[in-house]
């Protein structure tokens, strides 16, 4: 009977363990992620719609959304520019210490966020190594919104470099040679040939860096100073509600963040899918 069915469906499963591994995967996923996550929506449903709306639009929450989104966006943008330059330099040029630099680009992935937080805060403080040079210019980083931007730029850097780098490496030099032989100058080749091919990867990296920055907590809290309405990011607002045992309020703000993160995750997946399809049609 079973054999008959597999032949009918046209697939014979030679490999074992499908049910076991799929079962365990779904069980573990549900236990660790899905069921606990559903508690967020259970807790939020204890609020009426008016209460929910009132909580998520409190001035303190609104100010934190503006800061979190603004700083995350600008940090991802800065990374898109400088991360692209770093990836370009690492792929195309040779210079002393390149391998070390290449390995250290992943530092923000490996360095615990609390360490990054206290370090950036010390280095960019007015008396710090870098802060003392910025102070005469009137630039204060620690305890300002600029500090949030600095921490989020640190966190997002590897996302851009590591998504753009492999695409740059695989870029066919013949395309550039063809463009050059047809009379394009280097600047035209960059804008018309290289950048369009890199754009999907750049966009994916930007989305990943942006999404990561939105939820970042550890590296920001030390450098930002966490002044309500001014330098308080949304995770800090949630944390503040939890410290006062206002679980429903904290959860309501968390739901806003979760929805935005899911939308971004969806966007990133669509970009990835689009890139893959684009590449596969190019190959065919």
């Amino acid at each position, binding site marked *: 009977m079973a054999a008959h069915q597999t032949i009918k469906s046209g697939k014979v499963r030679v490999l074992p363990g499908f049910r076991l591994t799929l079962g365990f*995967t779904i069980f573990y996923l549900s236990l660790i992620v899905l069921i606990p996550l559903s508690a967020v929506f259970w807790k939020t449903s204890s609020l009426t719609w008016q209460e929910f709306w009132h909580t998520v639009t409190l001035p303190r929450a609104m100010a934190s959304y503006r800061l979190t989104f603004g700083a995350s966006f600008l940090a991802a943008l800065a990374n898109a520019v400088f991360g692209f*330059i770093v990836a370009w330099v690492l792929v195309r040029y040779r210079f002393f210490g390149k391998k070390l630099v290449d390995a250290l680009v992943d*530092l923000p992935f490996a360095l*615990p966020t609390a360490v990054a937080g206290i370090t950036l805060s010390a280095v960019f403080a007015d008396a710090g190594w870098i802060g003392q040079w910025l102070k005469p210019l009137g630039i204060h980083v620690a305890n300002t919104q600029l500090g949030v931007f600095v921490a989020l730029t640190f966190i997002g850097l590897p996302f851009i470099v590591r998504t753009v780098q492999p695409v740059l490496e695989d870029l066919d030099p013949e395309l550039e040679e063809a463009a050059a032989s047809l009379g394009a100058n280097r600047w035209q080749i960059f804008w018309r040939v290289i950048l369009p091919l890199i754009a999907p990867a750049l966009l994916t990296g930007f989305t990943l860096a942006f999404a990561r920055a939105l939820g970042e907590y550890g590296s920001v809290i030390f450098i930002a100073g966490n002044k309500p309405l001014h330098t308080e990011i949304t995770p800090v607002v949630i944390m503040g509600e939890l410290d006062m045992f206002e679980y429903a309020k904290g959860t309501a703000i968390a739901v806003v963040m979760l929805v935005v993160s899911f939308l971004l995750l969806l966007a990133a997946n669509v970009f990835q899918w689009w890139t893959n399809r684009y590449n596969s049609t190019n190959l065919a």
Partner: protein
Amino acid sequence: MTPVATTLHVPARAVPRRSTTEPAWVRRLLIGVALAFLSLFLFVPLFSVFVQAFAKGIGFYCHTISDPMALSAIRLTFLAAAIAVPLNCVFGVCAAWTIAKFDFRGKNILLTLIDLPFSISPVIAGLIYVLVFGAQGWLGLYRNADHPWFPWLANWINDQDIKVIFAVPGIVLATIFVTFPFVARELIPLMQAQGRNEEEAARVLGASGWQTFWRVTLPNIKWGLLYGVILCNARAMGEFGAVSVVSGKIRGQTNTVPLHIEALYDDYNFTGAFAVASLLALLALVTLGLKTWVEYQQAASQNVEVKP
């Protein structure tokens, strides 16, 4: 009568390939910009951790590191990683096996769900466990319910006084959550790229399922697996946000190393904070070193396969 010939005889090497590279000054400028940016955000901060850690001398450093509170934080961090990493490793292998070796509906949804913890703020990761296991959460409601389902279970939980939040189990759970996708993320694309031909051949030749896994699949994925484990471990030992929500920060009991750093920092003991932070920074450097080594090994093994 030969000047024409000499002008044509330009050595090929001296001709710059202008068409596909930039002038030297542009190259130097770009390298300069890249290194300046990285110095500002990566190199200077990294270097400063170690300088500030030893600001009060080696004696103070050793004293801070060997403090009982610091040692208990280190023990707890190792414990959390020792539970979280193997569990997520088993999950990663299972998920990669099922996704890469079989076709089924809803595969893309499963892939997206596995990535979910990456896109959730650490604070929210901690929050969801408070909502499940906290005093006002599901576990709290169950313990205090007048007519709970399975009364023996409620009694047992109350008798044992099982605590999850503001205790070690909560810290372990939060660590498992934030490191959940690492191994799976690494293995799924690798095993998808390798296909299922080798395993199918092993099966047809009479190998059992386990033999196929141990002798065919595992040698193929060992570098990817190691890579995932290294990244998973680094995150597990360094997690701050999620753990800080569920820990309660009881010194000597529920403080992990990152939380201990925060406690020292809040006490204005900056040198102490950096001394402990230097341990984690060292861990990060070891992680990067191992990661680079694994990448090198992986590339080497692939080259061997390409040129038999």
